[in-house]
């Protein structure tokens, strides 16, 4: 079964299609959830949130396109995991990672969708391996040591690239004009 066919069947309420998605993406979703909940939650919590991701897939299937379901699942897994942390009043990981944008930045006045597009473009315009390091750290909530090990890099190099990524993001989001070309942003 391929993904488009499985989604088509899922839209019709097919149980086997749901199981197919769990077989295909269960480990991936579980990994994303586990990364974010880390040691602050029990194994049962990780299972609960992972199952919630597939319940969301089941309930939302009729509105999904078969284009980037893995990306969709990553967003849902991340969102539900973050919510779980909030529900349990657990401190979000790396809560000190705040960006201070320029006061005259347009970002705050943009609609949510435009803000999301701006952030997406900013992150995806980062050069590699900076982009992957940034996503691993801030999106998947992996620690510096885990990133360093998995990307076979020195931890201090990972930290340096994270710092550069944060600064790049801050500069881009501090732009004054909505229509500025993000690729023209300086990279310090």
């Amino acid at each position: 079964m391929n993904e488009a066919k499985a989604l088509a069947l899922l839209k019709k309420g097919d149980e086997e299609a749901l199981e197919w998605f769990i077989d295909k993406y269960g480990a991936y979703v579980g990994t994303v959830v586990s990364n974010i909940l880390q040691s602050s939650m029990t194994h049962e919590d990780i299972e609960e949130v992972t199952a919630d991701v597939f319940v969301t897939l089941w309930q939302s299937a009729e509105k999904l396109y078969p284009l980037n379901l893995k990306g969709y699942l990553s967003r849902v897994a991340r969102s539900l995991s973050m919510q779980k942390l909030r529900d349990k009043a657990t401190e979000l990981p790396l809560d000190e990672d705040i960006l201070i944008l320029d006061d005259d930045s347009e970002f705050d006045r943009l609609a949510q969708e435009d803000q999301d597009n701006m952030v997406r473009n900013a992150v995806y315009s980062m050069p590699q391996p900076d982009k992957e390091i940034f996503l691993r750290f801030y999106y998947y909530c992996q620690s510096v040591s885990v990133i360093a090990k998995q990307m076979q890099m020195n931890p201090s190099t990972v930290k340096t690239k994270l710092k550069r990524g944060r600064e790049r993001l801050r500069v881009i989001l501090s732009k004054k004009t909505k229509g500025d070309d993000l690729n023209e942003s300086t990279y310090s």
Partner: protein
Amino acid sequence: MKVHIHELLNNIEDSSVNLEEQNVVSSERIKELTKMKITNNNSGSKRSKKGAVTVCIAVAVVAALGAATYAAFGGGLDSVLFNKASEEQPPIAESDIKTSDDYFAYAGNLEYISLQGYTGTPEYLAAKEWRQFESGYDTDFKILEAAGNDTSEWDDKYGAYGVYSQEMADKVDEIAAKYDLTLHEGGLEDLDEKVLEEKFGQTVMNDALLGGYGYKDGTFSVDGEFDGYPIQLGRVMKGTFDTVYLNIGSSSSYEEWNYTTKSGANVTLCLSKDKAIILADLENSFVSVNVLLRFCDKTMDKAQLENMADNINFAVL
């Protein structure tokens, strides 16, 4: 202005990072939990149900009205049905649902229609035969588990049919040959309104947002929105082997009528409180529109469904 980087990324979808997957959860445990949660949601909220059509006293009244209309109507849902619910297994009442197995038995008792053509056409017969084969094949998923999730030798030729064994591939070929149909080949194409307009020379549906996939032979399926209603519009080319079907709940809950659109296309319109359906048997294709009423806050009346049909450019389909 202060922004939290984690919050900034809340609405981003990423699949670019190749995470090292850990076996932190068991697939079987997640399946079990997911089904339990779906069952619990099902008993708590009708809107969140998947594929379920309410079988209750209120609908029984509608069904009684629908049955009268139905008996006098030819060429409607009865002409595309794959199954009548009561023929396959006794109905399970919604109130009897206690476990996930009950829920799926209940969902499995729903009626399904062909999106390929009317009863007796080669396209309908082929889809029905495949459905019968598929429903009895690998019921314990052992073959699927052995096949794994990696790409297979059958993906290119049989990608549209969910084939994961030589036996399934042989069955696809057997059915296609039996009914003299061609397979959907050439892989999926991503479609949006712009691509569709380029292909057809004009919009497929006025004022609609559409996106989905299609095959080289012209068969396609797109999801979208028209006038605030979520829709799924599909076209299956005649002479092709297509297997996608649609869950309609209970055919007796629909009011059905024939309608000629302003552009002159003859269509069948079907309306229930959960779903509306447009069917058009055209010269070269069979077109269906599934309006997902239970996923929006608007109701629909007959005039609104007729207006939707008027805005589909059947001449290019």
